[in-house]
Structure formats: structure tokens, C-alpha cells
């Protein structure tokens, strides 16, 4: 995003060389500001305001309505003593690492594969991308079925005589997260592939020619030249994939309901359960505040590197 920042450095006022009336300039600025108003309001009211609201109410004993009394850190003390919350955070961490690594790596490799001047590229691309168009309800339903030992792949293998074959990821506490990852990859990698493919296509042919002349093998060209040049696309992809992971909820509900037991429970589901099903807003909001804090801890250093120092140039 370095280029973007640079491009935007040139201030409109400086290049406006034509003499113009003061109020004319004022009006121009005004329309730019009016145009940015929806964004400013969204940021201030929704993302800052509502987050602050949820942090404030996490210090209360609110039940099913936001109206409780201030109780200090009581909700947080309870939160950290709750095995289910701690477990759900661990589940999310495992899912997050697996999902992030596989989505990015597989997405990139698929993009490289698609970039090999293949025939029927449109067809293959559509095949990889279509699951992204489906809702999580659909993904959950169909994968639940495929991985169900009584109906799915396992039963078919059993009927064919492979009686020892097991494909029951979702019914086993130790493997259910992998089941989630498989279904999540099915839905999400196509989109990452498209982003990466677009990134690859935007790289100048000349660079490839130069690398070829220098005798650098293709894999090294990708690793050492192409990937660093795709920084922009990688960041866009990370934001999209990362926010999807943190908010992971729909897929879990559709596929496993957090089970067996709580082996696939995630923080967002804990928040949701306490806020709505169990009438304990305070506890739900305390959990969500912890999610928010974690995200901030990860993102603030990145945002500082990305936007901080360059501004003073």
C-alpha cells in the first residue's frame, strides 16, 4: 500500500492553480467532506461507539437487557475460570493457524496452477470459486452429510468392503477442528485463489523475461521476486481471511453446533450464547471485549508499520 500513500500525498489545493474565489474552495472541500460523512459516522458511531458500549456493559451484571449495575471485573474473573471459554479460544487458535496457512498457501498454489496458460481456465476458475457464492447454511449441511459416518464417505467405503475405513472427523473430539478446516477451505480458497491470480497477472512480463535470461528457476522467481511484489494483494487477502477467522460462527453452528461437547466451540459462539440464549449480556460482552483486545494487540503493530512512519515523510 506504499504506492497508495504516495499517490495520495499530492494535496489537491496545491495543484489548483487557477485563481478561484475563497468560498469556491470552501465549497469544494465541503463536498469532499460531506462525501466522507457516511464513513466518518460509521466509524465513530458504529465501530467506535458500539464497541465502547460493549466494553462498558461488560463491567455490569446485565441480564437479558442492557440495564445492569456496575460490578467491576467480576465478569472477567468468571470468564477466565470458565473452561469452555478458554477451550473455545484454543480451538479458534488452532483453526485460525491451520485455516490461515492452508488458505494462503493453497490459494497461492492454485493461482500459480491457473496461471500456467491452461485450457478451460474459465471453467476451472468457476469450479474453484462457486462455493464462495453459497451460504454457510449450505456448506454446513452438505459437509455434515459427507462426513456423517452413517451416510457419507465412510458408509460408502464400508459398503464397498473397506470396513476399517474411517471418515468421521466431525463426531470425534480430537479431529472435529480438521473437519471444520476442510469445509472452510472448500468455501474460502477459491476467492483467495482469484485474489492471488489477479496479483500474479498484474506483474510485468518483463520481470519474468529478465529472470529467465538470468537463468533463475521458476520456483525461485516466485519465491524471491514475485511474492514480494504481491505485497498489496497479500495484505488485502490477509484482512479478508483474518477477519473471517476471528468472526468464525456460522460455519461452526451449521456444521457442528460447537460439538461434540465443546470440541469445536469458538469465542463468537460463546458470546452469542451468553448474550441471547442465556440472558447474561455482561458475560457475553466480557468475552467479546477479550476478542476485541486480542485483535487490537495483533493489528495495532501492523497498522503502525503500515500507516504510521510514512505519514511523516
Amino acid at each position: 500500500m506504499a504506492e497508495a500513500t504516495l499517490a495520495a500525498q499530492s494535496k489537491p489545493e496545491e495543484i489548483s492553480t487557477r485563481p478561484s474565489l475563497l468560498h469556491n474552495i470552501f465549497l469544494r472541500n465541503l463536498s469532499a467532506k460531506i462525501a466522507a460523512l457516511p464513513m466518518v459516522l460509521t466509524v465513530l458511531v458504529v465501530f467506535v461507539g458500539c464497541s465502547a458500549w460493549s466494553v462498558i456493559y461488560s463491567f455490569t451484571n446485565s441480564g437479558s437487557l442492557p440495564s445492569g449495575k456496575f460490578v467491576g471485573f467480576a465478569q472477567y474473573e468468571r470468564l477466565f475460570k470458565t473452561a469452555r471459554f478458554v477451550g473455545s479460544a484454543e480451538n479458534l487458535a488452532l483453526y485460525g493457524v491451520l485455516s490461515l496457512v492452508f488458505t494462503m498457501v493453497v490459494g497461492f498454489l492454485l493461482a500459480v496452477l491457473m496461471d500456467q496458460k491452461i485450457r478451460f481456465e474459465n471453467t476451472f476458475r468457476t469450479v474453484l470459486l462457486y462455493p464462495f457464492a453459497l451460504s454457510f447454511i449450505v456448506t454446513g449441511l452438505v459437509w455434515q452429510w459427507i462426513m456423517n459416518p452413517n451416510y457419507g464417505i465412510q458408509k460408502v467405503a464400508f459398503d464397498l468392503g473397506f470396513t476399517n475405513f474411517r471418515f468421521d472427523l466431525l463426531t470425534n473430539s480430537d479431529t472435529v477442528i480438521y473437519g471444520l478446516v476442510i469445509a472452510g477451505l472448500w468455501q474460502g480458497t477459491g476467492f483467495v485463489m482469484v485474489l492471488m491470480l489477479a496479483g500474479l497477472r498484474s506483474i510485468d512480463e518483463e520481470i519474468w523475461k529478465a529472470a529467465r535470461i538470468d537463468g533463475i528457476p521458476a520456483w525461485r522467481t516466485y519465491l524471491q521476486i514475485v511474492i514480494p511484489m504481491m505485497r498489496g494483494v497479500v495484505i488485502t487477502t490477509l484482512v479478508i481471511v483474518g477477519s473471517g477467522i476471528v468472526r468464525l460462527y456460522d460455519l461452526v453452528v451449521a456444521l457442528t453446533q460447537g460439538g461434540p461437547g465443546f470440541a469445536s466451540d469458538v469465542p463468537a459462539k460463546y458470546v452469542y450464547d451468553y448474550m441471547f440464549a442465556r440472558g447474561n449480556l455482561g458475560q457475553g460482552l466480557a468475552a467479546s471485549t477479550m476478542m476485541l483486545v486480542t485483535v487490537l494487540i495483533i493489528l495495532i503493530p501492523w497498522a503502525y508499520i503500515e500507516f504510521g512512519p510514512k505519514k511523516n515523510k
Partner: protein
Amino acid sequence: MNKFAVAATMAAALMCGTAHATDLEVTHWWTSGGEAAAVKVFADALDATGTDKWIDGAIAGSGDAANPIIISRILGGNPMGATQMNTGRDAEQLIQAGLMQDLTEVATAEKWADVIRPAKLMDSCMFEGKMYCVPVNIHSQQWLWLSRPAFENNGMTVPTTWTEYVADFPKLKEAGIIPMSIGQGWPINTMWGVLLASIGGPDLFRSVNIDKSADAVRGPEFKAVVDAFAVVRDTADTSAIVPLWNDATQLVIEGKAAGNIMGDWAQGEFAVANQVAGKDYDCLPGLGMHAIVDTGGDAFYFPKSTDPEITRTQLELAKLMLSPEVQVAFNLKKGSMPVRGDVDLAAANACMKKGLEILADPANVLPTGEQTFSSDTQGQLQDLVLAFFADKSMTAEDMQAQYADIVAASE
């Protein structure tokens, strides 16, 4: 999509937009076969008034899915006309905030206090001396449903107690029958509650749920219940555990599973499948161990409306729901027992009659967890029960210790 459909949708949108006075939207999560048939009794009764109309707002996926929608709508100032809701502390805050319609007027005129039994049901709808909800039925959870063919076709007699039933597990497995089918999620918790009441007995149940005695939880009687629960856990393989409660009932109806612990609402499913109690299936209240029923049930609340026509219709519906004819027809479909003690239940089947007999003696009546613990504490206990059921490495002692901690911490 033809022009008529477009016109119809537009017309519907217009009608709702101007809040046509006699349409009453009712939200609920009753979407299984037996449940839908029961809701239809209410809807037909309201429609039969000629002026008022029931608009069905079903949201599938149990109360967990519907709750945020119901509360948001009430909070946002666009409430439904009536809604199914869990009684107890959840509703209390909405009542306190003045968002719920006071039904005391209807309750007095219709003399609900005289006809509703057990009287405790009234209490769960009362707040500061006023009536805010309509209890529509009594559900008891303590039932074991057994498929007669599953036993008889394999040379076994249908068990009459839990102990006999558990002894049949190995033979059933050998015959390729699932000993006990289980729905995922809350049905596991229901099963736990049933074991606690039926195997532990009413005294243990009362000291845990009413006296909130952590010592009782740490005692040997409680341990015996946990051990029984562990037997079920260790017998259940992946074929026994199905996504929804009615999927589990369905396995019993088809004879693929021998039994299933579920509340009396399961009876609605047997009825939809045209099965006859005593012939196709058997039922053991209190698992055949103790003659007990609890008196959970469903209730409807009426969010306050600014439109007097809506309020009038709400009061009308509240009255209808408890009228003797509707009570009988509704409960026969739902598989539950009427809240009125003065209705004729000649049409009731063998199982419901067993239940009514037990209900007649107040000593047999247990409160449900919903009436004694806050939904927050219930949630914590449910988390523990589900975690225990999913994790074969968790010992009975671990479970007891954690259960005791939660009970001790509840207010």
C-alpha cells in the same frame, strides 16, 4: 413468479405496513410435525373469531435461534403480537422495563387462579402481583420411550424399568439395534435431568435443585446418577447420536433404536406417525423407577402495543389459549398435559393417562430446573453435562466436583 404473486406480496406488505388492527403475528419455535399441528389449534381458534387473524412467525432451531430475534424486535419497538418465550428470569427484565402487556384483567375475568393446576404454574407468570404470561401446557421430561418391535422381534420382553433396559443394551447391540438414540445438544442435558430425578429420586432432585446443596452433589447418590449417565455415554456410538431431538424419536418410531429419553412432547411425533401407545411403543414415566413428573411447560407472552386493536386481540388470544376446548385439542396434539384441571380428557392415550395419574398427587410433582436456577446457571450446568458426555476420559468425580462448584456459586 406471476403477476398475482407480486400483487399478493405487495398487498401483504401494505397490510402489514398500516398495521391492520386484527392481524396478530405470533412467533414461536414449534416447527416439528406434532408441534406444528398443535400451533394450528391456536391459530384456528383465533381465526374462528372471524375478526382476528393469526400470522404465523415460526423460527426453526429451538429457542436459541429465536431468542435474539424476539428480544431485538421487542427492544426495537416493533414487537410481535405474541410470542413463545421461556418463563422465569429472562422475561422478568422485559416486564420490569414495561415492555410486556399486563394480562391480569383476563386472568381475573376467566378465573385462571381457580382452574390452573398445579398453582405453581401461575407463579412463574406472575410479577409483582400481576399476570404477564399464559401457561399453555404442562410438559414433563421424565419419559423413556421404547419401541416394542425392537425388543419383541429380537426375542426380548419390553423392559419396565431402567435397570432392565440397561441390562438389554448388549443384546440389542448384537441384534444391530441402537440401544438408545440421542439428539445432540440440549437433549443430552434433558437426559441428564431425567436420570437425576428418576435414578436419584425426588429427594436428591429437590436437595440439588431447590436447596441448592453442594453437599448433596458431592454425595454417593449423586455419584450413582453420574455413573448411570457414564454407561449411556460409553454405549452411545456415532450412529446413536443424531442432530435433532425428533430425529432421535424417529429412530424409535422406525424401530432402529430401542429407546429414547425425551419429554412428553415426543408423543406428538408418535401421533403424527400414527403409532399407538401400548401397541407400537411403550412409555415409562420416571424411567419406571420413581413415579414422578415435573411441570415444565410453554408459555406465551404478549409484548405491549400502542395500538388498542392489537391489545384487544392479544387479550382475546390469551383467553382462547386457556379455554377448555382449545386446551384439550392443543394438548392432545402436542403430547402435553392441559394446565386446567377441569377438562375432560377421555380422548387421552395410555401414556398421557399415566402422566395425569402421577400429576394428581402433588407429592410426585417436581419443579423443573428452569423454575429454580437462572438461565445463566442452567447454561453453566448444561455446558458441564455436555462436556462430560463428549469426553470419555472425564471421571465421575471430576464431574461431581465441578457440578458442586456451580451449584454452590448460584445465588
